[in-house]
Structures are given as C-alpha cells and as structure tokens.
C-alpha cells in the first residue's frame, strides 16, 4: 500500500522501509524549536531528565518572540533563562532581539527548514514549514526537552486529508482566504490528528508566502501538520538559503486518504472567520455591517513581505479611519529592511498606521495592541477564540492583509475594491 508525503518522511526518519497510519515510530529530528514562553519550561524539564548537553547545538533553535522585546519583568526573567541556556549550551541558532523576528517567519527565511526534514517546535504553528515539503509539527515543552536531550521524538503515523487545489485565484484573494475557506469546509477538528496533504494543479498558482500561510493554519483544522509538494516555486525559495543536501518526497499514487477535499481556487472568495472559531467563515463582502476598532496586519500567519505589500497596495493614498487603530507588524528584521527599501513603511505611516517591531504581541493578547471590553478587531492572525487578543468581551475577525487594510480604511469589514 502506498504512503502519503508525511508517512514517507516519518518512515525515513525512523529508519524503516514503510509505515501505516496508526503505527508509532521513534524518529530522528532535524530541528527542535522553542520560544520565550515554551522554552523556559522545556529547559527546566531538560535538566530534570538528567540531560547535560543538547543532542546537537546546531539543531536547536531558540527565538524570543512572543513577549519580546520583554513586556514586563516576568517575561524578562523567562527570556533571560533561555538566553543563559543558549550561551551555556552554545546554541548556534539563538536569535536575539534585533537579529530575530517571529519564529515561523524567521526559520524558513534563514534556511533552517528543508524538504524531507522532520521538525518539532514547542509552538502550535510549527506546522508552517510544511509549505517547504518537510514534516513539521507543534509539540509541548516536555516533548521539546526530550527532543533537545535525545534528538528524537515519537510520532503516531497520521492518516491524511488530501486537499486538491485546482484553478487560479481571483485578484486580491490569497493563501489566507484559501485556508480560512478550507477550515470553514472541514471544521476546527476536521483534520484532527491527521496530516493535510496539499496537491493539484492549483498549487503552482500559490506563492511561497501564500503556502506558508496555508500550512501555518493547518493546526486550526486540528491537523498534526500540513504539507505541500516540492516544485519550482519551492526550489526558487530554497536557492541561496539552504545549502545542505535535502531530499523531497512525493505521495504514492496509491496512498490512502481518510478524506479528499477539492477546492477550485477561482471559487474561493475573500474570506473572514467571525468570532469565536476559525471555522466560522463567511465571505468578507457579506460582513460590511461589522464596524471595527482595530486592524492588525502581521503575525506568523501573515507578517511576510508579500503580506505587507498586499496591505500597502490597499492603503496607498488612503487614510486609516479615525475610529480605527491600524497596527502593522513585520515578521522579521529582514522583512523590516525590505519594507523600508520598497517604500512600504512610508505608505503605512502616511496612511496613519503604526509600523512596529517584529513580535507575536497582540495575536495572543500579549502586548502591542491588546483589546478592551466590547472592542472588535480585524486581524490577519490565526485564532479568534474568546479572549484571544484581550478582554473576554472583545471580538476578533480573522482576515487576509488586503481585507484587514481595506477594513482599516473604511472602519468596517470591507473588501479592497470598496476602497476608492
């Protein structure tokens, strides 16, 4: 019986010829990631396990991004614990504030993820890297600790949902709309424990930044991982970033899937997810009656250069509504530089938006844009649970950068072509 992409990668990492869904495998890890919230917990567990040294100082990545630059004394203490560990363990890829960014924007950019690799991260959006054809999944701090200590992790081989993309996207429609549309179709547990395996002619129509956005939100359908096949778009992205050898996988033609979903990209509308689940989707054009107080453009989901370009294209020559705070958050320092060089930062400032440092910040109600009771935010982030961005009486509407920018200008949920 054939295997899916995920199954092939897991089998190889476990040193076995083949595997089937449901089997438990102990796999060698190519990368172990942690951040300023999950890392300190993992470091405690690491020492409790009796570990002395990480399995490979070049295969552990630590990124202070959630509450960094530190928002208060407690978070400063946590980041300090991680920094001390990084120095003691001579961690090669510790990214300090000023050289860092949001982990899931940073790692692909730095060439730390390649096709066929197995990556775990103590952050649920670690599934982002599947855009590059690797098996990449979120775990907790104790799994991260065990990964740092042994270089291995156990996995239950997942079943799969095959997502076949056909056709071409309409103007302004992006990867964010595709993934929200998909989650709307299958639900927040529609791919629970499974891998989302993307394929079809439509894949080539989606840019790498778009694929990273789609894979990023695989967890919002409950998936273990999301994975794309490797094509010319992938190879062009990897060129100059990844110099080590890598080996892509393709799904077998007789691979088994628990379910197949076909999406014609031409049928995907500009989509938003209304409170309080990412599956509560609706076409953005049908939500004009929803006034907003804040728009956030950024995060590990939509803080890449293409996202900033899409927002700037809508904001150029327009003003953010007087009733809205528009907060633009670039993903990494490199993206900051690009945004300056391309003149995007001037567009944001001229429009009356704020352009901040890279941080996870408001996405999880941390800092830099927390919501008050009764406030409503259109956000390019990934979760709209109760209280996610602040007060339990606040509301989050998930959207693409183009929709968030249009909404910022008009003061209500809006599509880019409404901005005249």
């Amino acid at each position: 019986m054939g295997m899916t992409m995920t199954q092939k990668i897991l089998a190889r990492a476990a040193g076995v010829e083949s595997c089937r869904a449901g089997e438990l495998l102990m796999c060698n890890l190519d990368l172990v990631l942690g951040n300023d919230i999950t890392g300190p917990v993992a470091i405690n567990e690491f020492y409790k396990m009796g570990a002395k040294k990480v399995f490979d100082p070049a295969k552990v990545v630590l990124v202070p991004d959630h509450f960094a630059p530190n928002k208060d004394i407690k978070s400063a203490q946590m980041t300090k614990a991680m920094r001390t560990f990084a120095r003691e363990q001579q961690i090669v890829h510790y990214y300090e504030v000023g050289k860092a960014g949001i982990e899931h924007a940073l790692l692909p950019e730095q060439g730390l993820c390649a096709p066929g690799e197995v990556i775990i991260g103590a952050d649920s959006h670690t599934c982002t890297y599947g855009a590059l054809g690797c098996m990449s999944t979120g775990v907790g701090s104790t799994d991260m600790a065990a990964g740092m200590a042994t270089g291995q992790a156990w996995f239950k081989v997942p079943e799969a949902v095959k997502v076949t993309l056909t056709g071409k996207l309409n103007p302004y429609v992006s990867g964010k709309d595709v993934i929200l549309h998909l989650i709307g179709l299958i639900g927040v547990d529609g791919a629970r424990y499974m891998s989302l395996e993307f394929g079809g002619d439509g894949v080539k129509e989606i840019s790498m930044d778009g694929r990273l956005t789609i894979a990023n939100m695989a967890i919002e359908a409950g998936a273990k991982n999301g994975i794309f096949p490797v094509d010319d778009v992938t190879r062009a992205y990897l060129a100059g970033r990844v110099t080590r050898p890598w080996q892509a996988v393709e799904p077998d033609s007789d691979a088994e899937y628990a379910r197949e979903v076909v999406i014609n990209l031409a049928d995907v509308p500009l989509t938003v997810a209304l409170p309080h689940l990412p599956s509560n989707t609706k076409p953005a054009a049908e939500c004009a009656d929803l006034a907003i107080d804040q728009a956030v453009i950024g995060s590990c989901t939509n803080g890449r250069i293409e996202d900033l370009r899409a927002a700037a294209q809508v904001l150029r020559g327009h003003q953010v509504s007087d009733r809205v705070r528009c907060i633009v958050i670039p993903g990494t320092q490199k993206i900051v530089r690009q945004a300056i060089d391309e003149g995007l930062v001037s567009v944001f400032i001229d429009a009356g938006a704020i352009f901040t440092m890279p941080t996870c910040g408001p996405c999880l109600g941390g800092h830099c844009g927390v919501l008050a009771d009764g406030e409503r935010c259109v956000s390019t982030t990934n979760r709209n649970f109760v209280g996610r961005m602040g007060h339990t009486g606040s509301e989050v509407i998930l959207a693409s950068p183009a929709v968030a920018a249009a909404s910022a200008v008009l003061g209500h949920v809006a599509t880019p072509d409404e901005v005249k």
Partner: protein
Amino acid sequence: MKMQSAVIKYGDHVDTDVIIPARYLNTTDPAELARHCMEDLDAAFHEKAGTRKIIVAGRNFGCGSSREHAPLAIKAAGIECVVADSFARIFFRNAINIGLPIVECPEAAAAIEDGAQVSVDLDAGVITDEATGRTFTAAPFPPFMQGIIEAGGLVPFVQRRLEGK
C-alpha cells in the same frame, strides 16, 4: 489508577486560551497558573474544583496553542482526570507527557451530566456513572504510551533512557 468524584461538565472545543489565557504565560509556576485556570470560560471553576475532581467535555478538548501550561494548570488546580469525546492532538501529547490522566470516550462524554458522581478506572479504561450504574469503556492506550504513563510522564521516561536502563 482509580478515582471517584463529581463531574464538572464543559462543551466542545474548549481551547487553550480559555484553559489558561496567554496573559498569564509570563510565569511557569503551576500554582500561579492554576489560579487562572478556566477563568475566561467559567468564573465558578475554582469553587467547583474544590469538590469536583473530574472534567467531562465534548469534542476537541484543548484545541489551539501548544502551551503545556494548559494541562499543568488543570492538574495544579486539583483536577485528577479529564474525560472527553476527543482531544486536540498537542494537548493529548502534553497531558500524557506531564502525567495528567485523560480518557477519550465519546459515549461517556455525551451521557454524563454536570455534577454526576462518576468513577474512572484508568487501567481498565472503564468509566462508571455511579447514579445510573451505566459503564463506558474507552479504548486502551497503546503499549508505548502506557510505558510513558507508567513511568510517570516523559521526564522520568527519558531519564531512564539517558541512564541506559
């Protein structure tokens, strides 16, 4: 392992942001995390957890973030077991790894009412509604996972491995 208690019942998709809101993630202290456990979902949680030690919930319990602070907060709040229709996968791993007993059993999750007295036999995977006498059987954990549970979580499990035992 066996436990008996009245039940606190919740619905579907109880997410990690309500189990432990991110505004409290600037600490790793279980006791402090426990103080804020479920506060965005159920203001009466702590009062209930004073006498009720078993949570019964619907589909996809623990969806969202990978924060291990979520099962840690539940455990430190005095909850001895979570029974659900299904668990989100990262929460499932985390609960096993930190030693919070969990049982996946759709029938029990559907039938057991808030406040009901139930007993849970983890080794047998049997949940009993003491008022009605009705029993529910959950699928047992695979042997590999039982090894982690028997060791008391992933930390002692890896500890043994590193010591070459």
